């Protein structure tokens, strides 16, 4: 039997900067568009349909001194190729569930405790969607939890909360997402939590929500872990940040570690570029510099810290992030409205789904989310 490697095992290899050789047997276009990224990974892309008659031609391109992982879209073709390689005497694994599962894997990483002086310490857990570069958050204190920017794989959060016997009380989306389908509303429905959205992003939604405004505040548990909303438009007109326990700044899709948000995914780049500038160059600059920035995305695998988390102090970003250091407004405007990367796959359909206007089935939702998030400009 060919060995199946789980998405969790692959994630651990990425976090620990291990070496691995990836034989990606999807078609070239799919591979070019999106692949498993690891700092120490090397790659060979040969479509499975070129290997139907045998794998002899590629044997000498596969190393024997490190793990070899065969990857395809949904696992069927990678099993097929992995079996051929086993017959040829090689030891390889295939990625269980393929890129479909890779897109859905969420790795919970604790960022440590909050409110250190208190008797009961709160905690922020970052859920790293490693395949797509999406980050969501669970903020925990005294048996209660709130969620920010939850992905559509709601069971992961619900199971995690169950296991730790947490009650989810509030669910936030920092903005109306265009790159992935939000799980926020579903989690709120299942747990009875309040679902919050910025009203300026929610003008077309078909469901009830609590209005997330500048200064909105919730408290978690009985201790003073509070979550405060900070209006910071620019990626969308409603984009809102959060300050957690005066220690963390959740920036949504406005500020990332090595890049900044793009203003064009709702078709209003020219209108929103001024807001984006104001949020990045004024609103954030007025905050305490030792806040730790927790963004809603990472773009490059190099942005992962040693423990796999994605987080950096605001004062460091103010120096190192190119997007925060463009003096000239016109240069800034050009950078965020011209030469933008391609838009995320199916972003209009995703927006409509998040508004409740479309209700695609699970398979269709997966299709819509294929590929990287592409929410940033560098």
């Amino acid at each position, binding site marked *: 039997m060919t060995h199946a490697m789980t998405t969790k095992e692959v994630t651990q290899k990425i976090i620990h900067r291990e070496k691995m050789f990836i034989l990606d047997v999807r078609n070239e*276009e799919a591979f070019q568009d999106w692949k498993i990224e690891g700092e120490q990974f090397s790659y060979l892309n040969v*479509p499975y349909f070129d290997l139907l008659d045998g794998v002899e031609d590629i044997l000498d391109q596969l190393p024997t001194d490190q793990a070899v992982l065969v990857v395809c879209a*949904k696992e*069927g*073709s990678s099993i097929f190729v992995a079996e051929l390689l086993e017959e040829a005497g090689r030891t390889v694994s295939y990625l269980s569930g393929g890129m479909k599962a890779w897109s859905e894997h969420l790795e919970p990483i604790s960022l440590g405790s909050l409110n250190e002086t208190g008797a009961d310490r709160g905690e922020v857990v970052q859920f790293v969607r490693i395949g797509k570069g999406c980050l969501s958050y669970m903020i925990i204190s005294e048996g209660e939890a709130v969620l920010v920017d939850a992905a559509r794989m709601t069971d992961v959060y619900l199971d995690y909360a169950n296991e730790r016997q947490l009650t989810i009380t509030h669910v936030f989306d920092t903005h109306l997402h265009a790159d992935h389908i939000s799980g926020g509303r579903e989690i709120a429905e299942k747990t009875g939590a309040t679902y919050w959205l910025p009203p300026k992003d929610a003008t077309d939604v078909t469901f009830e929500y609590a209005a997330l405004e500048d200064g909105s505040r919730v408290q978690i548990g009985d201790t003073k872990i509070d979550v405060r909303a900070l209006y910071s438009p620019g990626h969308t007109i409603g984009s809102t940040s959060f300050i957690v326990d005066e220690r963390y700044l959740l920036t949504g899709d406005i500020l990332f570690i090595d890049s900044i948000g793009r203003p064009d995914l709702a078709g209003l780049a020219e209108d929103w570029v001024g807001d984006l500038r104001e949020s990045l160059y004024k609103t954030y600059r007025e905050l305490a510099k030792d806040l730790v920035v927790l963004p809603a995305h990472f773009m490059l695998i190099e942005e992962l810290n040693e423990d796999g988390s994605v987080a950096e102090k605001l004062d460091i970003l103010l120096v190192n992030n190119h997007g925060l250091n463009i003096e000239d407004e016109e240069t800034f405007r050009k950078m965020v409205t011209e030469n933008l990367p391609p838009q995320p796959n199916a972003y209009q359909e995703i927006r409509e789904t998040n508004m409740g206007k479309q209700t695609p089935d699970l398979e269709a939702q997966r299709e819509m989310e294929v590929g990287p998030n592409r929410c940033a400009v560098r």
Partner: protein
Amino acid sequence: MQTIKTDIVLDARGLACPMPIVRTKKTMKTLEPGQVVEVQATDKGSTADLRAWANSTGNQYLGTIEEGDVLRHYVRKSSGDEQEAPAFKSIVTNETVETVRNNPDTLILDVRETAEYAFSHIPNAVNIPLGELETRIGELDTSKTIYVVCRTGSRSDLACQQLDAKGFNVQNVIPGMSDWTYETNQTV
């Protein structure tokens, strides 16, 4: 919608990757060069993979029609003889056809398979696949100049010879649809 005639229909519905391509490859081996297979599949990834596979193997991916959950892919087996020099001597370019195609005495005859025609053809072109030309020759208007087009000029070369022998006024269009950059219609 025009019915697309194919030489064989392959039912790969319900099969997951890699099976739709494995089956297609097997089926292609049973076909003559130039014949067309319709591959019915439900695996969404089959469209991109079949197109890429056809390109890498020299077969011709014609297009896909989506009907509910079922994808109907059309692929034509590569025909090795398309590189031969055309024998029929009256030849016109694509540009010429574009300039005369609206003239009342012009008839554009597309002799490719119906599946090829369905996905992209010159507006108002009449489709009679080469294999049916002999039996359907009566459908053609003898008073017109007939511009015969196919993908690369080989099948149209054979058609021109047939029609010329029957006394039609014909011109072979070279290169034909493989390099047609003007307006097209589709009937799928």
